[in-house]
């Protein structure tokens, strides 16, 4: 059981790191601001989410796991808000 | 090589870099920034000292740690005061040129 949990952790964390790296790459390589933003928000939410998911079995207690979830929820909220605001600024700048 | 060596050297480099920034920048805002870098370096020196003093079941000597926390907050207070002065000076200067 704990072996299974460990394997799950490793897999999910690796996947999360992959998405974060992909998002970074997208931010570097994509041609215009809006598509860069697109790459960023996906990487943000999914990458961190997968890492959180992976670490949850290791948290040891229900409270610890919930704390991890809260971290992710907050990051998502911030990401969504800032994504909106950046898009608005980008549009204003391009006009 | 361990974390004490690495971060000790980093602390020294930050102090030098921060001091250089404070001395060479003409813009007050940049000086404030550089001064904070210098402060970061000094705090790291304390951090390294704290780490070396690890013992009695702690990861680091708690006394320097407490002093770093005090230092960070006081540095922030000083920064806000500096920024307030800076903004006020800028405001006065603008009024002066407008008239």
């Amino acid at each position, binding site marked *: 059981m704990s072996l299974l949990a460990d394997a799950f952790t490793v897999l999910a*964390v690796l996947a*999360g*790191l992959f998405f*974060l*790296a992909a*998002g*970074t*790459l997208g*931010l*570097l390589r994509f041609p215009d*601001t809006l598509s*860069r*933003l697109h790459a*960023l928000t996906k*990487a*943000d939410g999914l*990458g*961190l989410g997968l*890492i*959180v998911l992976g*670490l949850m079995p*290791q*948290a*040891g207690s229900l409270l*610890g796991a919930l*704390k*991890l979830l*809260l*971290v992710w929820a*907050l*990051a998502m*909220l*911030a*990401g969504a*808000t*800032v994504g909106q*605001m*950046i898009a608005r*600024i*980008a549009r*204003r*700048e391009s006009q | 090589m361990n974390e004490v060596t690495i971060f000790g050297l980093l602390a020294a480099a930050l102090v030098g870099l921060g001091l250089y920034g404070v001395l060479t920048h003409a813009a007050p805002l940049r000086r404030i920034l550089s001064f904070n870098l210098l402060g970061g370096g000094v705090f790291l020196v304390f951090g390294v000292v704290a780490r070396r003093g690890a013992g009695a079941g702690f990861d680091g000597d708690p006394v320097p740690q407490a002093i770093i926390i005090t230092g960070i907050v006081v540095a922030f207070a000083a920064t806000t005061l500096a920024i307030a002065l800076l903004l006020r000076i800028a405001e006065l200067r603008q009024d002066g040129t407008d008239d």
Partner: protein
Amino acid sequence: MLTVVAGLWRVLRGPTDADRMMAAQLLGTGGIAALLLLAAGMGNGAIVDAALSLSVLAAFASVAFALAVPGRRR
């Protein structure tokens, strides 16, 4: 984790203005991820609290970023 920290660095000097805010945003997320991984790796649950406060403050700081930029006409 190394890739996150190292990769983010190149972002900061990346393109321009609005992009720089995105870089900061990604840096925040990367920092949170790094803290969580450190917490698991060093077996110190208190670091999760640090990640928690960082995630609240990252939200706060990036909003400030977004408000600071439109004031500047380029």
